[in-house]
C-alpha cells in the first residue's frame, strides 16, 4: 500500500481535570496542557507499525484547526510520520464538516487507508470516521482492537458490546481504533530534532472550497450533577445492615 492518512486532533490533555467556565460558554482552556487525542495516537502507532512491517510506504498525519495544531503534528512527525498537513481554520467545525474536509484530502492524496481515533476526548462525538466512510462510499471498521492487512482487504477485530466482532473490508477504507489496539511509543529527543526537518504543509481551509455543512448550535455548558459522598461502614456486618436499610437485599 502506498499511503495511510492518520488524523491527529489537538485536545485538552486527558490528565487535565476539565472545568466548565463560569459563564457557561465552554470549558477552561487558558493555560491548560494540550495533547494529541489519545485514540489518534493509537491510530498513528498502528500506521507506523504497518510501515515498519513494510505494508505501507508513507504515513501522512493530518490535523484540522488553528495554527496551534502544528504542535501536535510535530509530535506525530517525531513519532515517525513522514509528513504532515494542517488544514488551517479558526471556525468551529462539526464532525460532518471535518469529514468533508478529510474527504477532500483523501481525494488529493489518493489514500488507500484512513486510520482515526474512535472519538476525540473533548466533544466525545464518535462520528467523524463513520461520516468520512459514508461520504467516501467506502467501508468502515470502527472500534478496532486488531487490524490485519491482506492485499486489497483488511480483517478488523472490533470491540463491540457483545464481545469481539471480526469484519472483512475491502480497501480503501476507514478504520477507527480503540484503546487496546496497541501502546503508542514514546518520542525521543533526537526524533524531535529530526521532525523539525520533515515537511508540514499548511493549507487554508478556504482553499479546499468545502461547504462545512450545518452546525449543531452549542447553547451552554454546565457542570454535571455531582453525587454526594455517602457513609463509611466499619465492617461487613455494617455493610449488610446498610444494604438492608436501603432495601437492596
Amino acid at each position: 500500500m502506498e499511503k495511510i492518512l492518520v488524523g491527529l486532533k489537538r485536545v485538552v490533555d486527558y490528565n487535565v481535570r476539565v472545568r466548565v467556565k463560569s459563564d457557561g460558554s465552554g470549558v477552561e482552556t487558558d493555560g491548560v496542557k494540550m495533547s494529541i487525542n489519545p485514540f489518534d495516537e493509537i491510530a498513528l502507532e498502528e500506521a507506523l507499525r504497518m510501515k515498519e512491517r513494510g505494508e505501507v510506504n508513507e504515513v501522512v498525519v493530518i490535523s484540522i484547526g488553528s495554527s496551534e495544531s502544528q504542535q501536535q503534528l510535530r509530535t506525530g512527525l517525531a513519532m515517525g510520520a513522514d509528513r504532515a498537513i494542517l488544514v488551517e481554520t479558526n471556525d468551529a467545525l462539526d464532525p460532518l464538516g471535518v469529514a468533508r474536509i478529510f474527504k477532500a484530502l483523501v481525494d488529493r492524496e489518493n489514500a488507500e487507508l484512513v486510520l482515526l481515533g474512535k472519538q476525540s476526548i473533548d466533544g466525545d462525538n464518535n462520528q467523524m470516521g463513520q461520516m468520512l466512510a459514508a461520504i467516501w462510499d467506502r467501508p468502515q471498521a470502527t472500534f478496532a482492537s486488531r487490524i490485519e492487512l491482506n492485499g486489497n482487504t483488511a480483517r478488523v477485530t472490533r470491540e463491540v458490546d457483545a464481545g469481539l466482532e471480526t469484519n472483512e473490508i475491502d480497501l480503501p477504507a476507514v478504520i477507527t481504533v480503540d484503546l487496546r489496539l496497541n501502546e503508542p511509543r514514546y518520542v525521543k529527543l533526537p526524533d524531535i530534532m529530526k521532525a523539525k526537518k520533515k515537511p508540514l504543509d499548511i493549507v487554508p481551509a478556504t482553499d479546499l472550497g468545502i461547504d462545512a455543512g450545518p452546525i449543531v448550535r452549542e447553547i451552554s455548558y454546565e457542570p454535571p450533577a455531582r453525587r454526594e459522598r455517602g457513609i463509611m461502614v466499619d465492617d461487613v456486618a455494617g455493610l449488610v445492615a446498610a444494604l438492608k436499610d436501603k432495601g437492596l437485599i
Partner: protein
Amino acid sequence: MSKVLVIAEHDGIELNPSTAKVVSCAAGIPGAEVDVAVFASSASEIASQAADIQSVARVLTIEREENSHLLAATLAPQIVALSDGYSHVFGPSTTFGKDLMPRVAALLGVNQISDIMTVLGSHSFKRPVYAGNAVLTVEALPLQVVVATVRTASYTAAAGGNSAPISETQVNVDLPTHTRFIDIQSGASDRPDLQTASRVVSGGRALGSSENFDIIYKLADKLGAGVGASRAAVDAGYVPNEMQVGQTGKIIAPDLYIAIGISGAIQHLTGIKDAGTIVAINKDEEAPIFEVADIGLAGDLFSIVPELTDAL
C-alpha cells in the same frame, strides 16, 4: 408534529433492551409519534417484541438476507430510504448505534446529536462532553432531520403491554458488499447482561489476577448480579474487554453497583454515575471512589468479599 423512527437493536433472535430505552427518550419529544424499524433476515419474532413496547405507534419490518448481520455499511442506505417523512431518526448509543448512526447522518447531510441524556424540545437536547465532566445543551437546525444516539443509561426502558401494528416494508436500494461479517466471539455467560442487570459487581486491578476474580464471580452469583471490571483490570488481562465499565467501556445504571478494588478513575466514574446505590470496597481510604460511594468500606477485599458473600 414530530415523527421519530427508532432503529431496533437485536442479535437476530431477541430485541436488545436498549431499544425500549430509546423509545422512552423519543416519546419525550412533545407530540412525538414513534415508529420502530426492525432490520433482519427474519424479523417477526423481534418485531412482536418491539410491538409490545408502550408508546410505539407502528413497527416496520425490513426483511432482507443482507440484514442477517447488522452492519452499518448495509443498514445505512436502507435507513436513509426509510427515513423519508420522519423528523427524527434515533438509535441507542451502544456500539451498534455509535457505529451506525453517524453513517446515516452523513448520508442525510446532517450532523448527529451524540448521547442524548435529556430532551428539552424537538430540536434541543442535553448531552455529556469531556468524559462527562461537562453537560452541553445543543440545538439542531429546525428544518432538518435530527439524527441522534440516545445515552441508554439516562433512560429507563418503556414498559410493555402494547400491541402496535406490524407492517412489512420493502426498501429497494442497492447494498454494498464491501463489508463482510466474519464472526463474533463473546465470553458467553449465564450471568445477567452487564448493561441491563439491576445489580452489578465490578472488580479492579487490586484483584491482582484473573484467578482472583473468582471471588467477584461468587459474590455476583449470590446476588444474581452482572459482572463488570475497571479499565485497569481489563488492560491487565484479568477479564475480557466486554466487561469494562466506564467512559471507554459500558455506561451502566444498575440499582446497586458494588465496586471492589477499584480506585475510581474519572473515566470509570463516568460509567456508573447514574447507578442507584454505589458501594465501594477498597484498601485505600483516600481512594476517589469513596467520594461518590453511598456506602464505603475500607479494608482488605480478599477477606471482606468472601465474608460478604457468606453473609448474604
